[in-house]
Every structure is written in C-alpha cells, then in structure tokens.
C-alpha cells in the first residue's frame, strides 16, 4: 500500500494544482477576454500577443524568467519577502503562479471567441430593456458564452496537468509539495521503475483522450490560435 500512496501523491497534487489554476484563470481570464473581444485600443495587438506567448515559448524560458522574477532577489520576490510571505519558488503557490501564466491562452482564447461570436444585437436588446452595462454582462454575455467557459475550463485544466518544463524550473521536485505527475513520471523512468511510469503515463493517455472526447461530444470546436 505504501507503493500506491507513493504513486498517487503526485496525482493528487496535480489535480489540486490544475483545479486551483483553472479557477484563478477563469476569474482572471474573463476581464482579459472581454477586453480583447471588445476593445479597439491600439494596445490590443500587444496584449493579444502577450497572452498568446506561452503557446510558443519553451516552458523552460517561461520558468526561467518566473524564477528570476519570484526569487528572493527578483522584483516580485523581494517585495513578497519583505511582507513576510513565504518564498515563492519551490512552493505550491509558486507553481500556481507559474501555471496561471503557462495556461493563460488556453483559457482566455475560448472565452474571447465566445464573447466575439455573440455579436452586438443581444446587448442592444438588453440595453433597450433597461439593462445597464454590468447587468448586460451578467445576464447576456456570461450565459451566451457558457460554451466557451466549458471549453476554457477543460483546456485550462488539461493543459496544466500536462506541464513539465515550467514546474521543473520553478517548483523543482519536492515530493508531496511540488512533485507533480509529469515530473514523477520522469523520475520513475530515470530510476528504471517502468511499471510505475506505465501506470501514470497510461493514466495520462486515458485522461487526455477523455478530455478531448468530451469536448468533441459537446461540439464546442477548439479554437486556439496565435
């Protein structure tokens, strides 16, 4: 049984990380997606590119800069440290922050697409029915974008589960704290523990298929673009 709990600790940690990250991203991604969908600002291309960056950057690059940023001498790390906040790198919180950056486009883009497809008419209808801007957002935009939110949540979760490079750079390999599934598989293979690696990897294959299958069944096309 000791073996099993050893095998499952990284799984549980990964599920926790992906859930927290997805939740934060849905909240944080909503205003970003809304702004990208509605704004005609000249800053829009810049922001859109920044949001899409994690799609093309090697995760190690992202992890490297986050490590410098969050480290005790970094611009963010030195501030958090002076407030007595525990050191961020090599902690679960640090992993969450890194994952938020890493999975950002996978959450923002489906929501943005959903907002864009609504078009102006439903908002005009709502406005003539005495609904103010916030009212319109909650009573029209959110319910009409729910398909986008479903896609965003599934993709955000699945993509966070699959991260490796960023975790390794910023989280290291601390069992029960930052050692997530993908890192655990790597360790098992390194140690020639192929059976354990098989269980975890096979599980990931099944999980990934299930996620994509679910998305197909619900007929919400995956649109991730640069």
């Amino acid at each position, binding site marked *: 049984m000791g073996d099993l709990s050893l095998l499952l600790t990284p799984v549980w940690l990964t599920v926790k990380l992906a859930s927290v990250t997805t939740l934060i991203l849905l909240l944080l991604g909503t205003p970003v997606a809304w702004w990208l969908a509605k704004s005609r600002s000249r800053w829009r291309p810049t922001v859109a590119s920044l949001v899409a960056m994690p799609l093309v950057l090697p995760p190690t690059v992202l992890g490297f800069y986050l490590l410098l940023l969050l480290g005790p001498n970094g611009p963010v790390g030195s501030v958090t440290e002076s407030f007595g906040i525990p050191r961020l790198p090599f902690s679960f919180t640090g992993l969450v922050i890194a994952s938020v950056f890493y999975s950002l486009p996978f959450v923002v883009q489906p929501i943005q697409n959903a907002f864009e497809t609504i078009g102006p008419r*439903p908002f*005009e*209808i*709502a*406005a*003539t*029915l*005495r609904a103010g801007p916030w009212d319109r957002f909650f009573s*029209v935009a959110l319910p*009409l974008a729910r398909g986008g939110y479903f896609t965003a949540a599934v993709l955000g979760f699945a993509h966070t589960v699959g991260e490796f490079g960023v975790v390794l750079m910023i989280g290291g390999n601390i069992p029960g704290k930052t050692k997530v599934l993908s890192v655990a598989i790597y360790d098992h293979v390194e140690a020639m523990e192929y059976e354990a690696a098989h269980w975890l990897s096979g599980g990931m294959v099944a999980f990934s298929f299930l996620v994509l299958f679910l998305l197909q069944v619900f007929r919400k096309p995956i649109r991730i673009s640069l």
Partner: protein
Amino acid sequence: MNEIEISVRAPIGQFVLVADTRISATGVTALFGRSGSGKTSPLRWVAGLQKAERGRLVVNGEVWEDNSRGIFVPPHRRGVGFVFQESALLPHLNVWGNLRYALRRAPSANNMDMIIERLGIRTLLHHAPHQLSGGERQRVAIARSLLIQPRILLLDEPLSALDQQGKEEILPFLELVKQESQVPILYVSHAIEEVRRFANSLLAFDGGRVSGPLPLEAIYVKNGQPSS
C-alpha cells in the same frame, strides 16, 4: 411638452443623418422611405444605440442627448421599447424568460397578464425563440417592449421579415397597441399600405435626410401614385 424634438446632423452608419423637426408625442409617426435608404439609423440614434457627433434630442421635455452641453443619456436609462426587424429575442431565454427579463427591469408593476393576453402569446411561454414563427417572435418582442413601460416605442420594420400571412397576423396587434398605449410610436417602414393603415403622421426619409412631419396623403404624391 408633448412633443419630440429631433435635431441631428451626423454620420450614422453609411449615411449622414440630417433631421430638424418636431413631432407630436402622441400617436404613430411613420418614418417612410425606400428600403435600403438607411431608415434604421434615426431609430438607433433615438434609442441611444448610436451616438451622433452633433445632435439634440428632447422627448417630452426631457433632454436625452445634447452634445453641445455634453448630455448623453445611455440607452438603458432612456426607456425605449425597441422592436428590432429580426432576431429580436434574447436567444438564451425562452419566451417567458424574455418577458421576465423586461418585467424585472420595469420601473413599476406591470399588467403582464393583459399584455400576454392581448398579444396572444400565452401558449408560447415555454417555447425557445428558434421554435417560433417570425410572426410569433415579433409578437413576443412587442409584448416585451411594452413591459418595460417605455416612454417611446420604436418599431424597426417589424413586419418586413414576415410573409403576407405573418403581416396580417401582426397588424391587428399593432393597431391594438396604438389604441391602448399612451406613448408615442416611431414606426419605420417602406410599405405604403402599412403606413396608411397604421400611422397618424409621416416623416419622409431619403438618403439620410428626414423631412416632415407631413400629412399622410403626401405618401402618394411622393411616390407618384394617384391618391385613392
């Protein structure tokens, strides 16, 4: 007081909207012009869905827009019942949901039962918008626009997307609304017959320029047809 002052000179959509007129704030004023002459833009401007660079709009003594004084009342504070030409219902709500949307945001209690009865939509309450015929959709949209207790009713060719049968189905309801409603109605149309049946006065619309108010008979002269 009982009038609508419209004074505007601004590009809206593909046209430069030019109007300088006062119309009575009772009864039905038809905004009449050929199809494709941009007749929707004045309605959208009155509703506040589009801003004009230079315009002044006063409805019953209340200034809704006056850009020389920096006044712009946003659409949700104007209280305009707007019936769009098509896709006028909120797609994620059924008929009852659409009516309730207006009901919850109305300034005071409503005689909803009467409105549902008059527009004959009681049996449709649990239908989704896509399950309705064009005529049924427009009836729901009209009922909904009445429920917000509008201070002006704007009808953007509510019949044009309908076939003859659909039109015949709606017109009696519109006439009922006209008789019972206390608010002014601005009605955009390119159909002479509709205007003749429904309107009290006329604004002619051509290439963005609004002229009038004109007597109803002007509709025949303008189109070079003998008056009947």
